[in-house]
């Protein structure tokens, strides 16, 4: 690893330039080796999909499908990336998505229609994030433990709320957003939300003080503190941010699945962490890009799609997923040591 033990501010300014071209069209040219290698993997996958199932894979509807399926976990991953860059971890994302989705789909909430569901999902997500943040930042709890506790209790609470039942959404304005009629210029609303969250996430991490502080806290918390950063408050905000992303993701999931269920968001924590790591985020903190994470999500979703189109079974899928995580990390080791 070339991670600096040197002052974090240097590290952030070191890291930022390659990822901040004037326009995102120019990104390809100036992107770092890591992003290029991820794009290479994605291109290879698209090639495989195109060769094995040309008619089904290279189809507008399939592109819409892949992006839609990437949206929910993608939004969660953006939040997760911030947390991991800061040197933390959030194991509770899947459980928060579940809790937010079942709370937002209770009969009482559905009475208030679209706004009621959206509001509840976001508030529950932010609320859980707040609890995580307070425990970690001010209760000095290890993120792993605090969010593990949140995982357990949020899952338990969502089971209690639903009583094991599937809460079917009956609000047309919510359901309509998942229909083809709601696509604008062929883009599903879910994908637009994903895109907006990605762009905002990228801007915040790369262009704001908040982003620089996040990287600094992850690189060397002590140095960050000495540099005048309120490390605890920064951590609180980061878990809040992750909770907010979970709330948004829960709303997207409600639109997609048309229901709230306590099993929602199952294993999202692992998928989001895996996508972030594949995208080049260091689990030890201090480095990571939103672009990488989102590419990680797209790679996973594309693999799932290709496997389903070729009618491969889920066991093969899981094995391949494991292999890809290992391969991606090994490739990164190489690129990290050469750059």
């Amino acid at each position: 690893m070339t991670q600096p033990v040197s002052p974090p501010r240097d590290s952030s300014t070191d890291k930022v330039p390659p990822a901040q071209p004037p326009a995102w069209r120019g990104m390809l040219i100036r992107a770092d080796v890591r992003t290029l290698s991820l794009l290479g993997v994605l291109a290879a996958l698209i090639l495989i999909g195109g060769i094995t199932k040309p008619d089904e894979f290279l189809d507008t509807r399939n592109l819409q499908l892949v992006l839609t399926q990437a949206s929910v976990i993608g939004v969660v991953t953006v939040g997760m990336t911030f947390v991991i860059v800061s040197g933390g971890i959030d194991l509770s994302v899947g459980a928060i998505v579940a809790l937010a989705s079942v709370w937002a789909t209770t009969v009482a909430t559905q009475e208030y229609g679209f706004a009621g569901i959206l509001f509840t999902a976001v508030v529950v997500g932010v609320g859980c994030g707040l609890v995580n943040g307070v425990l970690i930042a001010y209760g000095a709890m290890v993120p792993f433990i605090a969010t593990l506790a949140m995982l357990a209790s949020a899952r338990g609470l969502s089971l209690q709320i639903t009583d094991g039942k599937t809460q079917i959404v009956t609000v047309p304005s919510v359901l309509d957003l998942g229909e083809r009629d709601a696509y604008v210029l062929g883009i599903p609303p879910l994908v637009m939300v994903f895109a907006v969250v990605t762009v905002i996430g990228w801007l915040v991490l790369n262009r704001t003080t908040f982003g620089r502080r996040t990287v600094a806290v992850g690189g060397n918390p002590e140095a960050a503190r000495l540099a005048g950063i309120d490390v605890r408050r920064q951590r609180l905000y980061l878990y809040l941010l992750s909770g907010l992303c979970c709330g948004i993701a829960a709303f997207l999931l409600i639109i997609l699945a048309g229901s709230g269920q306590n099993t929602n968001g199952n294993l999202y924590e692992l998928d989001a962490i895996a996508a972030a790591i594949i995208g080049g985020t260091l689990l030890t903190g201090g480095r990571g890009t939103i672009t990488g994470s989102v590419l990680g999500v797209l790679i996973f979703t594309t693999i799932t799609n290709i496997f389903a189109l070729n009618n491969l079974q889920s066991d093969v899928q899981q094995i391949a997923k494991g292999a890809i995580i290992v391969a991606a990390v090994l490739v990164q080791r190489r690129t990290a040591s050469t750059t």
Partner: protein
Amino acid sequence: MPEITSRRGLLFGAAAVSTGALLTGCTSNEPSDSKDEPAANDQPAADDKPGKQVTIGFAGPQADHGWLNAINDNAKNRAEKYSDVTLEITEGSNDTAQQIGQIETLINKKVDVLVVLPADGKALTQVGLKAMRAGIPVVNLDRIFNTPQAYRCWIGGDNYGMGLNAGHYIGEKLKGKSGARVIELAGLDNLELTKQRTQGFDDALKNYPNIKKVARQAAEFTVESGQAKMAQLLQAQSKVDALWNHDDDQGVGALRAIEQAGRDDFLMVGGAGALSAFQAIEQDDGVLKATVLYPPTMAASAIDLARALGQSKGIGGLAEFEIPSSLTLYSAVVDKTNVDQYMSTGFK
């Protein structure tokens, strides 16, 4: 106290007779008493009239799925119906170790009969044996113990039959259609029951050479996975004549994906018997035309059987003096013609 002892002896005698020689060693307490009494009583069939007080211990699953929740509800409601039944219920659990502990507690409480839906049939066999050895007959619900020695009676659904009946229903609907294409949205692939359902389905389709199963994807019994896998399946298969989905809960998601893809060119058969599926079948405005049952009412029947066991009675309609050692429910096909009859059993 003597009354209780003799009743337990009697119960155990009944269990020992049916489960064979192994347990006879443990029945040495009152062997003659227990063997003679059933014949002397002429084993009347159980009915709704209050009889001897029976305490039934119920160790059910964690209700994290509509069907499992319905199992718990069915057991509770049926027990409330009987003034002579007391239900000792443990908190549902998917954790093997925890459930073993819960069953041991029920054994220590000396309940008269145990009804157990094991989180894992194989893993809970030992505790089933333990209860039987302690003289408490066990009604094994759904997921089967490894050995018949661990239960007095097994009652459950027919997973193979679900697949078989779904296959036959689809086969008959597509009769005469050459080159028909069928897809399958299976449940969790690491469950034995999923393999049985698929096997039954495949076996049924062999009767219809005009039909070909072109794709199968496994979901996870959840709405979310049902939606995701179904969306992929539909993208992969542009022309489909029928779909069999193993589970109505994941079917909520599957139907959502079908709607989102704007597809209505095939017929769909579900599985299990959820209320939402029954309602969709009744309305008949979508692709879902039928569902094959895996009835949660089996939990209510398990309570009936446990009560009959506790009161040393047979069951009505059968000439036998004892309740059967196993009961497999029929996976009826519910479609528009008979959905009214089943509506009340639909689970949320």
